[in-house]
Structures are given as structure tokens and as C-alpha cells.
């Protein structure tokens, strides 16, 4: 059995260690203050895809990401860890997309680059939006089954006679786990409690280190102008594929801001002005007060 797998991945600002300048005065994420990283749960998703690739030789794993030129970093990173390649979905018309417009764009791109897709795997949610909506919406738009909150793909089996394939996955639910089975093709969203992604493979790092998307090239330059230009001619895999709305025949009305019904009503900035702490001395008075306070709040006793 060979599977065609698309991994949905997003480059996100690292919101896990935010400092005081993480938000702009306008209430949007200050992208320049936070390093751009591979969305953590998308790495868990990539690992599940790569395990299937190890298990079923001939399986292909491609990453699909939507974003500006620098988001190609996510594709390179996935290639270092074992993905065959990827697609950077990028267009000004995609800008300002909410989850609906994003899933439309991704679903449209998948139809274009991989009509015979068996599995679409993404992280549960991205750490910048925390919606967990994009995976399920992609499934709906493509009319595919979905299993969310996956912790492990237990088995993929194919019935020889009918070529009917199905997948069994263990998924995280409130208070426990559940094992479910679904026919392929299928969309999975993977939980952070799934296996961590394997490290970069050094041979692959050396092989793919110069891979670039056209948008990453310095202004006005082509691959021919780069150092080691001959390599781009010889090795097509060093040119990361870039897709625009036109390339995937997207309906512009459903893309970007135009296709996003979500409107942010208001943004509240919550800033802790004072440290929520109390300084106690060693005096009997302070100790007594603390004991009483803790008793009153039922922290002790």
C-alpha cells in the first residue's frame, strides 16, 4: 500500500514565551517580537505522517502551508525531517483570512496538487489562533471523514479484493481515549499528546539546505543569480513550489478578507499592572494573618 499524504502546517509566532511586547497597541500579535516557529502540533502531525511513510514504502508526504515567503521555512524544516516536499500557498488575496477562508484555500489547493489524496493530517490547532477549526473545515469542504484529537494511528489496512482502505486511530477525549475507525480518504487532526516529531536528519539537512521558494529570493533575483546557481538547475527539489490563487483556480470572493465573515468586535488588552504577590515578614502578626486567610479560603484545614 502506498499513501499520498498531505500535512497541513503553519508558521506561527512563538506565543509560548511571551514578553511584555508580545502585543501591539492595536491588540494584534507583534510578529516582530516573537520568533516564527513550526506550529507545535503540526510537528506531531508530521511525525504521524512520517511513521506511515516508514511503514509503507512508496508513500509520499508533502507539506502544504499558507503564508508569506518566509513560511517556506516550515516546508524546509519538514523536508529535513523526512517530508518529500511541499507547497507554499501564497498570494496577497489570501491575506486576512479567517478559518473559513483559510480552509477554503487549503481545500482548493489540495484538490489541485493532490486529487488522489489518501490522508490529510494537521495539528489540532495553531498556537496563535487556538481555534482548532481549520482541520475539520478542510474535511467538510472536501467532503471527507475526519478524526480529530488523534494521539496515535494504530493501524492502516487495505482489503486486497476491494482495495478499500481504512485507518484506526486512538483519539483523545475528555476523561479518556477512544479508538475509532474510518475509511480513507480521511482528515486527521493530531493532539499535542501524540509522539513528538523526530529530529532533523543530517543527510537531509545537507541535501535540502539550499531549498528556496521563489518569494524568498532577494528582490529582483532569480535562482540563476544565487550562489551555487547550477544546483538549482540540476536539482528541482531545491525549488520549493509556490501556488497563487490563480494556480489553484480559487474563487477570490472566498479568499482572504473577502471570504472571511469573522469580525473581531473588540480587543481587550489585559496587562498585569502590579505583581499579584504579598510580602510577609517573619512577625507573629503576619503569620497569624496568613493562617487565618488560608483557613478562610479552605486552602488548608
Amino acid at each position: 500500500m502506498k499513501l499520498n499524504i498531505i500535512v497541513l502546517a503553519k508558521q506561527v509566532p512563538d506565543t509560548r514565551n511571551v514578553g511584555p511586547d508580545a502585543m501591539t497597541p492595536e491588540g494584534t500579535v507583534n510578529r516582530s517580537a516573537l520568533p516564527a516557529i513550526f506550529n507545535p502540533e503540526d510537528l506531531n502531525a508530521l511525525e504521524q505522517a512520517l511513521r506511515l511513510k516508514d511503514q509503507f514504502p512508496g508513500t509520499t508526504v508533502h507539506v502544504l502551508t499558507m503564508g508569506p515567503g518566509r513560511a517556506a521555512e516550515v516546508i524546509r524544516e519538514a523536508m529535513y525531517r523526512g517530508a518529500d516536499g511541499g507547497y507554499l500557498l501564497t498570494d496577497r488575496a489570501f491575506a486576512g483570512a479567517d478559518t473559513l477562508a483559510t480552509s477554503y484555500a487549503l481545500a482548493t489547493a489540495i484538490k489541485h496538487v493532490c486529487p488522489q489524496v489518501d490522508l490529510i493530517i494537521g495539528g489540532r490547532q495553531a498556537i496563535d489562533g487556538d481555534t482548532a477549526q481549520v482541520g475539520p473545515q478542510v474535511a467538510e469542504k472536501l467532503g471527507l471523514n475526519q478524526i480529530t484529537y488523534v494521539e496515535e494511528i494504530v493501524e492502516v489496512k487495505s482489503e486486497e479484493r476491494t482495495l478499500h482502505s481504512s485507518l484506526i486511530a486512538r483519539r483523545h477525549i475528555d476523561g479518556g481515549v477512544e479508538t475509532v475507525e474510518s475509511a480513507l480518504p480521511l482528515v486527521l487532526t493530531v493532539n499535542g499528546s501524540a509522539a513528538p516529531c523526530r529530529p532533523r536528519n543530517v543527510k537531509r539537512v545537507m541535501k535540502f539546505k539550499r531549498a528556496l521558494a521563489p518569494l524568498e529570493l532577494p528582490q529582483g533575483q532569480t535562482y540563476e543569480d544565487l550562489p551555487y546557481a547550477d544546483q538549482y538547475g540540476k536539482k528541482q527539489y531545491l525549488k520549493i513550489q509556490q501556488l497563487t490563487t490563480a494556480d489553484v483556480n480559487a474563487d477570490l470572493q472566498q479568499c482572504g478578507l473577502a471570504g472571511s465573515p469573522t469580525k473581531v468586535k473588540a480587543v481587550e488588552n489585559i496587562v498585569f499592572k502590579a505583581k499579584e504577590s504579598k510580602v510577609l515578614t517573619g512577625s507573629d502578626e503576619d503569620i497569624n494573618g496568613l493562617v487565618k486567610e488560608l483557613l478562610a479560603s479552605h486552602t488548608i484545614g
Partner: protein
Amino acid sequence: MNYYKDIPEIKFELENSPLMQRIIELKERNFEDKEQYDEAPQDFADAMDSYDRVLDVVGDIVGNIVGPNAEAVDAEGPHHEGGRVRYASKTYENLEAMNKAGLNGMTMPRRYGGLNLPVTVYTAANEIVSAGDAGFENIWSLQDCIETLYCFGNEEQRQKYIPRVCAGETMSMDLTEPDAGSDLQSVMLKATYDEENQCWRLNGSKRFITNGDSDIHLVLARSEAGTRDGRGLSMFIYDKRDGGVDVRRIENKLGIHGSPTCELVYKNAKAELCGDRKLGLIKYVMSLMNGARLGIAAQSVGLSQTAYNEALAYARDRKQFGKAIIEFPAVAEMISNIKAKLDAGRALLYQTARYVDVYKALEDIARERKLEPEERQELKKYSRLADAFTPLAKGMNSEYANQNTYDCIQVHGGSGFMLEYACQRIYRDARITSIYEGTTQLQTVAAIRYVTNGMYAQVIEEMLGETVAPECEGYKARIQAMAEKLNACTARVKEAQNDELHDLCARHLYEMTGDVVMLLLLMQNATRCPELFAKSLQVYVNLAEADVEKNNALVNRMTTECIENYRQA
């Protein structure tokens, strides 16, 4: 945390030697692999960039997996089950990560699946892994045994075994026995030729074998019945897939718990001869040991780095008398000394690795074609330098690792004696470094001939002639004076013409040599990069001067009359 990116000194050592250009040129044979292998470098800069990226991966894995697992591995240790070894559970996690990253067969040619990295780069990886977990470093770095199989095995053996090691199978070198530790000539494991099955058979036992349940063993055994010395020993390859070797017990050790130390029993185990009969000890084990000694030097530097990190972090954090203890000169001095010894020892480690690289690459080229006369000269020069520097790098760095981890505990005070801080683990782990792969006393034996024949003196003189930064000029006179003391002591010992006096003074001469050589190397570093090394140089010059003075006094007081006082029999 990334154990490579966070320690700029390692990158400096890789990039700041004029020898690197030559090493890559030789190792890559003018970049001929680039047409055939996608990962092969296009040119010098490309190779250096790839090395940087490879070490970044190592640093990341060690920072996020191997390092954080070290405490659990130390607590659990390996298990002995049914004549086999089962590693501590987190050891498998470490191995899995290293294998997925493809960090095996690091120095092997690409045609066997290797990465074709210079020894210098492999040494850096070794240091980094050791900084995270010195016990795991043992298991992982035993891959280096494949170098000996590559050098002395036949093509069939290379094709059979090297790809397996590149794919992550582990190795061991089965040398020592209950009655043959430092004295390997006494090895008695019996090798007999089985005419019927056209193979060799091994019978007997081995003891203190690191990672003794490995997939592929290099075994030193007595193939010449009736002999009793080193000339009756040959080297064999034992493949675990053939069976016949069981683990009788695992030792309980003071440190490096992650690394299983085994007693092995060979029951008619099938084996292949590696290379020629009778050259097992005198040629192949010597090559194996030289590689292993460089590995222990790297392991020691890694431990010193962790000693420094742990001491620094604790001293900044711990407050007494109303301030961080790092503010107290008595504490700060200990940390400064750790750092100075670390930087000096590391400079010696990489200089040695580069020497090894040049001669190994030339030796390899000699397997393909006849060397030009100047290449033969070059091979001879670097082979001798590597021979001289390896025991110096191993002995000095392992002693430093012991001193540095000791001081690291001292910085921690009472907390350091409790088992909850990493400093106690690295202290226990460091203890073996000055013992295995030849004790410091045996490193002295290996090095002393280069003291008495003037080889180090010549290297020192050449280095003293090099241009240094103006701010370092002032040190030159002091180093010159130290070198003169070393020369005078050497002359004194030689003139005495007394073997016992020579042996009693050897360690002192060895240490003086180490001090001066490391000081000169550190001065080169400080000249190129004062931001990283100027401070260490200033601390180390005082330490080295005092140490030379001490050893100078000891040698000068040693007379044939006082030898009697040192006899303990």
C-alpha cells in the same frame, strides 16, 4: 537549549585553524562526491556550512533529549536479563533520536552510507553528546570502532559491516580480561580455526567491556597457540547475529551508569579475522586505542563544559550573606579556573583532532593511489604529531574533567553533596575518564618519549615564534621562561641516566609539557578571538606558570638518593 549553538567556543575551534582547509581538501578529494551524492559539499565553504548544520542538529538533540534524559538513565541504569543487556529505557529514546538524525558512521565514506565528516567534526559531536550525558556518549561513540575495521578489514568485511553501523548498529571493543587490563599482552581469549566450517571460533571470557552486548564486536584474541606475548594476538570481528557470546554480568559502577560494562563469555563463538594474524595488538589495537583516547579527551571536555555551566548557574542563583555567591572571590576563582582549564583543554583537543584528520585522510588516499613524496612527508609529520598529542590531550583533559567536576560540587556547597543536582552525576561520570583507554600514568608512558626526544620542545619553539596579538606579547616572555624550565628539567632527567628516576619524573615533565602547549594554543585563540578567550588566557597563564613551577621543583629535588623514599614494595 542547544549544546552547540549555546557554546560559541566549539564553533570557533572548528573554524579558526588554517589546517581546516587542507583537511577538507584531503577528506573530500577535491569534492568529487558532489556529482554522486546530493548531500556532498560543493566546495570548502559549503562543507563548513554543512558541518555547522550537522552540529546544530547534534546540539539540539542533546539539549532536548539526551541531556534531559541523563538523570533518569543514571538512576535506572542498564538491566541484565537472560544473558543480554537491556539499556535503561531512556537510552533507547536517545538512540532512536540519534539514528533518526542519521548521526552514525560519521567519518565513514559516503559509499558505505557514512557522512564522510572529518574527525575534528566528529570530535565536536562527541564533546556535545558527552556534555549532555557522558554515559550515553560511550554507547554512541563506540561507532568509532568502525574506523579500525575500515582501515584493516577487507573489502567484503567493509561492505558487510560499515553500512550496518551507519544505520545505527552499535559496536564494542572487547579487549580487557580479568588478568589483562593495562597489560593487554596477557590476553588469553582463545581463537582457533574451525577447518570444517572454515571460520574462527572464540572461547573464553572478557571483562570490563563497555557496551558488551553490542551488535558488532572487535575482539582481541590469542590465535597463536603456545604464545604468551602481544605477538600471538589477532583481531576478530564477532557478529551478534551469529550468536555465541553471552553477558555473564553487568558491573555496578561509580559513574557512567548509562553505559553497560559487561563480563562476556564466548562459547565457540563464530568470528572473522580482521586484517593479518599476529598484528592484533601491535597494530590494530594501537589504532583502535588512539581513536578511543581522542574520544575520551572529547568526553572529558564535554564534562568540563557541563561542570562550568552547572557551577556558573548555581553560583549566580544561590544567595548567601545577602548576595549571589558568585560575587565572592573565593567562589569566582573556582569558576574562573574551571573555565580556563576548559578552554585550554579544548584547544588541545581540537589541535589533536586536526592532526589526526590530516594523517588519516592521507593514509586513506594512500589506499587509492601512491602518495607524492611531499604527501608522504606530510603524512609522516602529522602522524607523529597525532601520536604525540593524543596521549597529552587524553591525559590532561581527563585530569581537568576530574578537577573541574570536583570544583563544581564545591561551588554547590552542601547541596552539591546531595543527589538532586547534576554536579554529583558529572563528578561520578568524570572519574573514569582518567582511567579507561589507558590511565593517565599510561598516557605519560606514551607521551614521555616525545618529551625526551625533543619533539614537543620543537613544537613549542615553533609556536613561540608565531605572531600574536600585541596584548599577548607580554605573555611570551613568561611562556619562554616556562619552556626553558621544561627543557632544563628534561635535560636533567636524561643526564641522570637512571630508569627509575626517569619514570618518577615522567609525569612531572608530561604536565609541564601539557601546561606550555595548552597555554600557547590558548594564546593563539585569544589572538584570533579576544572576546571569547582573553580572560581565560589571563587566568590560565597564572595557573600554568604555577604548575610548571611546582613540577620544576619536584623534578629538581628528585635525586637518585631519594628514589628510595618512593619505593613502596
